[in-house]
């Protein structure tokens, strides 16, 4: 089955190009020049067709369809146009605002701390002999699934009754440093959001570090030498010289993590499933779609997500266009 699908893909490109060159517009005979130039105009579209088709069906069409679904109510006899009723219903839902608030705090905290730690790790590991090994380890959580990471951290946050030995590291440390009783960290309202965020920070810091380390290394040495000769101390060198030089890259890292954060689903789904005031938009949406079976409100919340990424989308496209020209 696997190889069949691959053969099928390759077969399309081979066959379509062969047909174009040999059957429809052969590069010989009386129309040779016209045929060649026509074939060259068609060929890019043969190369592009499967990709474009998939992009249109799997990403572009769903955006429009979700928009339509968010404005309709599903009934057994068909879809009914309800205007903004789904949005109104959603904005009256306490859970939505909880999810929205939490998403905003995720958005503020996670990219900031990940990028900060990443920058720190990049800066420090570049100055020691075993820096590459250290980088590998900090980068490693990138390979671990959000669900796997949730299991890992759930053990860290685990709580046992007072009279038993604690098996969660945090509670063991908490008691060791004079805490009175073990705490169930992930049910602790407000703070538990932070404990969930730590999981994502743990995963994303390595990403930030790898990219920022490369950016730091690309700063011309003369700049740094000049700064040292002028007598700047290590702090000034870092904050006044290095950081401004890599501002662009920091921004890219920040926005990339922001997008990941907006879509965060697995961690919340696996660790609390939105209980104890930890709901986020992506999980709220999943709830509406697959448990509440409410496609209207689910789609409306998906549109909210889409609106939140739109500024980044526009900014990215602008940059890309600038680059092409």
């Amino acid at each position, binding site marked *: *089955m696997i190889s069949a*699908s*691959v053969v099928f*893909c*390759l077969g399309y490109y081979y066959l379509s*190009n062969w047909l174009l060159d040999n059957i429809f517009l052969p590069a010989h005979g009386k129309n040779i020049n016209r045929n060649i130039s026509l074939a060259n*105009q068609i*060929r*890019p579209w043969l*190369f*592009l067709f*499967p*990709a474009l088709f998939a*992009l249109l069906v*799997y*990403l572009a069409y*769903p955006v429009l*369809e*979700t928009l339509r679904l968010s404005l309709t109510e599903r009934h057994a006899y068909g879809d009914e146009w309800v205007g903004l009723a789904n949005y109104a219903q959603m904005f009256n839902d306490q859970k939505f605002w909880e999810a929205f608030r939490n998403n905003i705090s995720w958005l503020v905290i996670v990219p900031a701390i990940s990028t900060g730690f990443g920058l*720190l790790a990049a800066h*420090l590991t570049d*100055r020691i002999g075993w820096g590459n090994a250290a980088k590998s380890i*900090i*980068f*490693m*959580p*990138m*390979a*671990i*699934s*959000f*669900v796997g990471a949730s*299991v*890992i951290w759930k*053990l*860290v946050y685990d709580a046992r009754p007072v009279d038993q*030995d604690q*098996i969660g590291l945090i509670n*063991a440390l908490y008691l060791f440093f004079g805490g009175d009783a073990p705490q169930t960290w992930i049910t602790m309202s407000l703070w538990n959001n932070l404990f969930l965020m730590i999981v994502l920070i743990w995963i994303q810091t*390595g*990403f930030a570090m*790898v*990219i920022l380390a490369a950016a730091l290394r690309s700063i011309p040495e003369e700049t*740094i030498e000049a700064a040292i000769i002028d007598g700047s101390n*290590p702090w000034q*060198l870092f904050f006044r010289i290095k950081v401004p030089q890599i501002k662009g890259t920091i921004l*890219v890292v920040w926005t990339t993590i922001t997008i990941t954060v907006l879509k965060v689903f*697995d961690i919340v*789904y*696996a*660790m609390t499933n939105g209980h104890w005031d930890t709901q986020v938009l992506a999980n709220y949406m999943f709830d509406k779609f*697959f448990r509440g079976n409410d496609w209207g409100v689910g789609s409306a919340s*998906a549109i909210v997500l889409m609106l939140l*990424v739109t500024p980044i*989308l526009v900014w*990215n*496209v602008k940059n*890309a*266009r600038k680059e*092409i020209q």
Partner: protein
Amino acid sequence: MDNIVGKKSSLSWAVNISVTVLVILWLIPTIGLLVSSFRTADQISTSGWWKAFNSNEQNIIVRTANPQTQKIIDGKYVIEGMLFSSEKEMTISVWGVSSRAIDGYIPGETVKLTKGGEITLREDGHYRMINENPFTGSRGMRVFVTAPMAPEFTLDNYRKVLFDPKNVDGMGKAFLSTLTVAIPATIIPILIAAFAAYALAWMQFPGRALLVAFVVGLLVVPLQMALIPLLKLHMHIGIGKGFLGVWLAHTGFGLPLAIYLLRNYMIGLPKDIIENARIDGASDFKIFMKLILPLSFPALAAFSIFQFLWTWNDLLVAKVFLIDSSGQTEVMTSKLVELLGSRGGNWEILATSAFVSIVVPLIVFFTLQKYLVRGLLTGSIK
């Protein structure tokens, strides 16, 4: 770099220490899970995993043989024996004869008993009780011993999670499902994307810049948008839920990044080679297969790693497009979430299952890290 003008940084020890702290912080959660997966359920629930390497001090209460077994030797009453059954080898560190002082004596010491007589206990568990008068009572005397247990690790959890056919929570089948999802979902998009990237990088046609912008725009579209419309579509055209559906979905969602990365890389390839090949009469198809693909190997490798990690680790797409009520096609991530709910306290099962699911990505990560880093850099540094 700070010492290029001959000023050795006095902060270098501080740097070393900070990095060490960071590394330990980042490593410890994973180590905890790994260590736990090799411990028995009892060990996990009674002591923290960080104690697994200490030889655990264990307090046990045992009884001497009962007084009926006493013998008379040289006019004295004697009870002799061994406190442990023979298969257990233990070395007693301290011991006692009352619950208030379980660590009162060291091995080899002879202790007077309040009821008369005395007892000597050797560190291997052999004891000898001597009394002028007969020992009375129907049961043997209680002895409290403290003995270190050698650290003990087991592979049983893995055997149970992977190979036990009776274990309905086993990961064996889910492992195969995950593999079946991840491999085609990596290969198909990379093939399609490579052709498209070549067209966008090296072929002339109207609307090219617009298409590139379109791809860049799609890069950030949340895949949450796509779930319901596509599920509807799949149901409508008869693909339904299953492997084909999940492959197609992953292909669609992976394409923007794949095209973007590969195009960025291909456009950096030397122009001369491609133009020379064109002048020599090679067709675009040939140039692509014989020249571009081999030259783009690093970028292809980088994207395959991304896509493989992403599809292997994915939960949402599999839940929506693959897993049906029969549960036959469950992937490891969804199985894990289920275990978190139903077996939240059974850390031996959870830890082992989680580790089974993350070991493949970890191997891929450590062996192919070089390409992964390079791929990240083409994607984000401009």
